Every structure is written in C-alpha cells, then in structure tokens.
C-alpha cells in the first residue's frame, strides 16, 4: 500500500517538464534549477527537489504559468513526504496563479486524501479530471478516495 501511494504521488506531480515539450525546454535551458528540482522530485529525492525548486523560484525568471508548475511540484514533493498541510499551501498558490494546471488540483487532492478530507479531495480530483480526463494519475487518486469513501456490499441469493 505504501509503495502504491508513493507511486501514485510521484506520478501525480510529473511536471510540465515531462508532459509538455515546450515547458521542458524552458525548464532545461533557462531554468536549470527548476529543471533539476523537478528531476530530483521525480527521482524521489524530495528534499533535494524542494531545495532546488525553491532556489529556482528565487533566482530564475519564469512566467506565472511556470511558477505555478514549480509550486505544484513543491506541493507534490511535500505530499510525498507526508507533509499534507505544507503541500496544500503550495497547491493553493499554484491554483491561484494558473487555474488550468490539473496537476495542482490532483496533487492537492492527494494531500487532502492524506488528511482524511475526502470531500475536498473529491472536489479537487473532479476539477483535475475536467482539465485532463484521461490522466492515469487522476484515476489512481480517485481510486484511493473511493477506497476510503465507498461502502461495499454483496447480496447473495440461492437459486434452486
């Protein structure tokens, strides 16, 4: 289970760098610190990733959209470390800067899930799904929410 959660959270924060070639080239060439931070987070080196991303946000000039992506990455890294409250703060900032970034909603959903705030988690994963209906990360987080919120029942009937 622990392993699954980690995989889900890692998948959830893959930044624009991996999914959008334009963003990756910007991260790679003009924002090396943010790119290195994203790579570190993706590799599971959360503390390094957080440090590099914060440094990148301080030293590198980025558009509000890329800043939102970097904040979403910080959100993901803190969520992966189990620091849900810190994660939610970064995701809030990210959503405010760029409401079209589905990863921020998805990451915040995961952080809410960690806190047991399933209604909030559901609202965010719904928002993420409206923006990226086919993203597998969204299905994975929705699955985690369903596991906690749905009550299963099996009715049996004998036929003879």
């Amino acid at each position, binding site marked *: 289970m622990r392993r699954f959660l980690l995989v889900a959270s890692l998948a959830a924060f893959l930044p624009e760098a991996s999914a959008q070639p334009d963003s990756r080239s910007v991260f790679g060439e003009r924002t090396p610190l943010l790119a290195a931070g994203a790579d570190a987070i993706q590799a599971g080196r959360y503390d390094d990733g957080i440090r590099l991303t914060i440094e990148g946000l301080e030293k590198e000039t980025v558009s509000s959209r890329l800043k939102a992506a970097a904040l979403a990455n910080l959100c993901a890294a803190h969520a992966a470390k189990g620091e849900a409250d810190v994660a939610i703060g970064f995701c809030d900032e990210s959503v405010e800067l760029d409401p079209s970034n589905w990863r921020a909603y998805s990451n915040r959903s995961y952080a809410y899930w960690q806190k047991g705030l399933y209604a909030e988690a559901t609202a965010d994963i719904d928002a993420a799904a409206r923006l990226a209906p086919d993203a597998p990360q969204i299905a994975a987080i929705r699955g985690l929410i369903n596991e*906690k*919120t*749905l009550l299963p029942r*099996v*009715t049996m009937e004998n*036929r*003879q």
Partner: protein
Amino acid sequence: MSPGAACRRRVRFAAVAALAAVAGAPASMAHEADAWPIGVWSCLLYGMTGDLRFYLELAGHGGARIARPTEAEEGEWRPFGVWRRTRDRIELDDQLNGRFFAASLGRADLGGTWLGAGERGGWWCAATAHAVDDEPPPVAGLIHVLVPAVMASPRYPLAAIREAKEGRAVSCFVVTGDGAIVRPEIVETTDDVFRGPTLEAVTASRYRSWGDEDEALPACRSFTFELSAGD
C-alpha cells in the same frame, strides 16, 4: 404412484445404473466424443420470474423432452423442442415457451444462459445415471430443498472499489449428496473483476447433506456487488 410401481422403478433404476457402470451412461460420458450431451439431466432454470427444476432428456436424434415435478411424478416426459451441437456450443429451442437455450461446450456439466420474449436467465444441469427413452428419474430429485450449511461471502474486489464498479455474477455448480459443491462455473457476470471472488466464495460454501449419495443436484447462486457512499 403405487408401491409396486415404485419398486419396479427402483429395480429399473438399479438396472440402468448397473448398465451405466459397465457401458457408461450417456450423461456420465460427458466430454467423451460425440455422445455428449445425449442423456438425461437434472436441471435448474432461473430467471426473473423464479426458479424451476426439471429433468431434461436430450436424445441422439436431436429431440428434447422435459419432465417437471408433475410429469416426473406421473412418469411421463413432455416434448420440449430440438437441440443441436454447433462448433462451440449446444443450442436448444424451447418450443413450448419460445425460449432459446445455449450452453458452452468444454464444461463438465450442461448449462449456460437462456433468452425468451422479454426475459432472460440461466440454466444448469447435473448428469444423471438415467438412460434416454427410460421413464423420468424419481420426482424426489426435483423437489428436494437444498439447505445451505455454509454460505461464504465474497470479498468485494479492491480494484472494483477503486473504480467504483458495481455488478453481478452468477455461479452454478453441482451439489453432491454429502452437500459438497463441485465444479462451480460462472454463468453470468457483468465484469470479470467479480469472477474470482465469486468462485472463491462458492468454493468455500457447502450445503447440508441431503442423503442420496448417488444423485447430484444442480444449483446456482447469484451475487450482487453494490457500493454506497459512506459518511
């Protein structure tokens, strides 16, 4: 039925059973070359309107007859329709009720699904030792009530919960005289995710012994998997 007739029937049954042991009764020849499914079967039909037990005789020329409890009590067969073997299944036209029955080949027992006008369901049959052209087997085999001794409940598959998936599965099987469930199969399922848990639950279940070691009865159990929102 008079005691004499009952005695004659028992003698006849014993003789047929003995012949079956030597030559192989039609039903016990399941999967042996082309004879399958020629023979006499003890069957259960289920659907929206209820369940029905009957004997089914499938003759080598394609004719089919049934004996419900009333007919079995009177020792009579009733014409039912025609059956045929296709490349991958057995098909049976119920000319009495306008229903179409299909059964997969490759199963030890005979059964599958049926379709009628606005209705559908399943059917399952256990082999009997009775021979074609004989009288129907004793009515007791149709009216005996199977009493569950252990009803294991299936686990709800975690993958289905995660995907918020609900559904239904029906497993049919044969109950031996000591109450054991053998050869459970899935007859219907809305999703393969329910297949494993259903078969596990059926396999872990059993019925009370019903005394006749020689005759097996068909039975089915349906499972409805539902999810509701928690608090």
